[in-house]
């Protein structure tokens, strides 16, 4: 028994199932981060004073580097999808591998950032700024980890599907890429909000 429209698109909607599915899931993620940003706005506007990230010891150059790393990983993941559409499984492996490495790099840099803060006694309990900082970046980081697990699976054991159902596998990479781009998108807003403003 086959579920229709996993590989090919349904004619009237022009979509295959997983693509619609991932956009719906991303819509819920927009609401999740929206709720957190809403909390940020409420807490910040309600506070008698709100510090600049820089003044609290946030490492702007390091975070800028991290931003570049994540943007680069967005390019590599879309290139991995393009490679599959060109039928090139080896290029796919290369680009997806780079994506995973970039993700790893992002997490490593985040680790150093967090450690530095803890070293200075800046825990989430320290003040509201750090509370929302750690919650937002922490939840974002968890999403990065989740994405890397999926990407890792698709790079490794999941790639077997290329042999049995290449169209469906290509769709899976597109869908995983959409999620990954979203994670990048959230960071594009998180970065200036927490570090620069």
């Amino acid at each position, binding site marked *: *028994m*086959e*579920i*229709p*429209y996993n590989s090919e698109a*349904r004619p009237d*909607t022009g*979509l295959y*199932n*997983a693509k*619609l*599915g991932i956009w*719906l*899931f991303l*819509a*819920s*993620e927009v*609401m*999740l981060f*929206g*709720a*957190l940003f*809403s*909390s940020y706005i*409420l*807490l910040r506007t*309600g*506070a008698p004073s709100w510090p600049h990230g820089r003044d609290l010891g946030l490492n702007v150059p390091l975070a800028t580097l991290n931003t570049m790393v994540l943007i680069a990983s967005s390019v590599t993941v879309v290139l991995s999808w393009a490679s599959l559409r060109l039928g090139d499984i080896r290029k796919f492996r290369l680009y997806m591998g780079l994506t995973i490495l970039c993700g790893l790099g992002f997490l490593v840099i985040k680790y150093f950032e967090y450690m530095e803060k803890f070293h200075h006694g800046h*825990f*989430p*309990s*320290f*003040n*509201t700024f750090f*509370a*929302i900082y*750690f*919650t937002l970046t922490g*939840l974002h980081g968890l999403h990065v980890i989740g994405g890397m697990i999926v990407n890792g699976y698709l790079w490794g054991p999941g790639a077997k599907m290329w042999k*049995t*159902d290449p169209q469906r596998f290509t769709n899976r990479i597109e869908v995983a890429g959409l999620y990954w781009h979203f994670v990048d998108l959230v960071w594009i807003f998180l970065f200036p909000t927490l570090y620069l403003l």
Partner: protein
Amino acid sequence: MALVDDHAAHTHGHADAHHEPGFLGKYVFSQDHKVIGIQYGFTSLVFLLFGFTLMMLMRWQLAFPGKPIPLVGALFGQLNAPGGIMLPEFYNQLGAMHGTIMVFLGIVPLAVGAFGNYLVPLQIGAPDMAFPKLNMASYWIYFVGGVIMLTSFFLPGGAAQSGWTSYPPLSDIAPTGQTAWLFGMLCLIISSLLGSTNFIVTIIQLRAPGLTWMRLPFFVWAQFVTSFLLLLAFPALQAAAVLQGMDRLAGTSFFLPSGLVVSGQQLAVSGGGSPLLWQHLFWFLAHPEVYVLILPAFGIIAEVIANNTRKPLWGYKSLVYSVVFLGFMSFIVWAHHMFMTGMGTVMSTFFQITTMIISVPSVIVLTAFIISLWGGSIRFTVPMLFALAFLPMFAIGGLTGLPLGLAPTDIHLHDTYYVIGHFHYVVAPGTIFAMFAGIYYWFPKLTGKKMSDVLGKIHFWFSFLFINGIFMPMLWQGLAGVSRRLYDGGDSYSHAQGVLGLNKMMSYSAWGLALAQLPFIINLFWSMAKGKKVGSNYWDATTLEWAATTSPPLAHGNFAEVPTVVRGPYDYSLPGAPKDFTPQHEG
């Protein structure tokens, strides 16, 4: 099986057509929406019974304050009920968990997880849900969430006890059970998000040929809108739960204002938080949540009424536009739960207006159902009895909501028993009656047998009687000003004295309602084993699940042949037709 040729199956290497899953794969970790639907069904009914039991314990305390609980009083231990007499802390746990379990572990999983999962693919002519593995994951994550919630009773300090609404600062400093509540909710929310994605994709992508949007059974439209509500509203509570988790575990102050004093001591936290932030985020979910509770019920009632009046539903288009509009509006009314928080006039005006507007589509839906009865050949089957009772009960529930949605009257009624009466009218003789209607209605499809009509009617009449006996007096007590969540039921307040006598009546009704469920439980299990065997379309219905499948439907793929739909969902008594019903796929 869908029209898949074996060649394609081989090419794509799909092993499922050829390899039978073992016992675990078939009945435990099944990816078949019907099995998953049944799993959701049984689990949620057990939770409903459990939540009901919690309430029956509370009602003992309210009727006989300070008296030892009979029969089972010793079971609760010294920490909860020394000498069998319920402590206030235990009462609060029962209250908070009753609400949580009924809403999140009971009704929604039953309405959406059970009914939705089982019926939507069948009603749209699909072989299964779009993402069967995700469906399985949704169920098991729900199960884990439920286990977390139940076991929280055994944590030091007991289960969550700050109301199902978990308002901070109280919930921030409550015992460990509250943290378990947060983790349980996270599981339930994830389960829901995966499920709602599945439903939306399934309904959009897997409709059979010819099944256009305006030919969908209303039940499917209701599930469709419900899924959007779950998808876009739950994340707000997810965020709130994360924030409260941070407050409780990482020492943050998202919801703790500066200078908070607890038991004479200033709390050693950074402060600067906002308890109102929790309320906004919570109600942003919880208001759409109440529409999640009612929409599937509307869907079931529509099916049962059309079938038992032997005529098409009146106003199908109005029904569809109404529920879509209702779904949209449900996102912008939430702060009517917060009128008493010192809200400014602009916000208050806005939310009163949107709340008044949202009552319109509900009225349209109810009116359409009532008009649908006119000129119908009404069959007073057991499902129809529950469906007919739903109409005035939901009307009472809806009408009693109006003074709550207007701030001036809400001043008097907020947080009183009036509120509890209002929402229970909508959910209990409202949604739960619809659920019963659905169970009696679709039982023959699931099992190939019918339930006993005699036991069904006993179940109906006594439930109807007792359920009104519980909730009508609550409206009265609330108008008299009796606050909710009081361990002594209002005994310490002079203004409550005149209406306290009603507490005993409500408690007897509650216990009577419990007894009234026995015929149902007996009926359910006895009929599954020994019920009279019936054909695939016992009720002579028109929608695809009756007319194109066997009873029970095929294990793989649901349909022997993919049906092609050629007409709307309720072609009953079509002029010139040979029978008084014409199935959707019949030409």
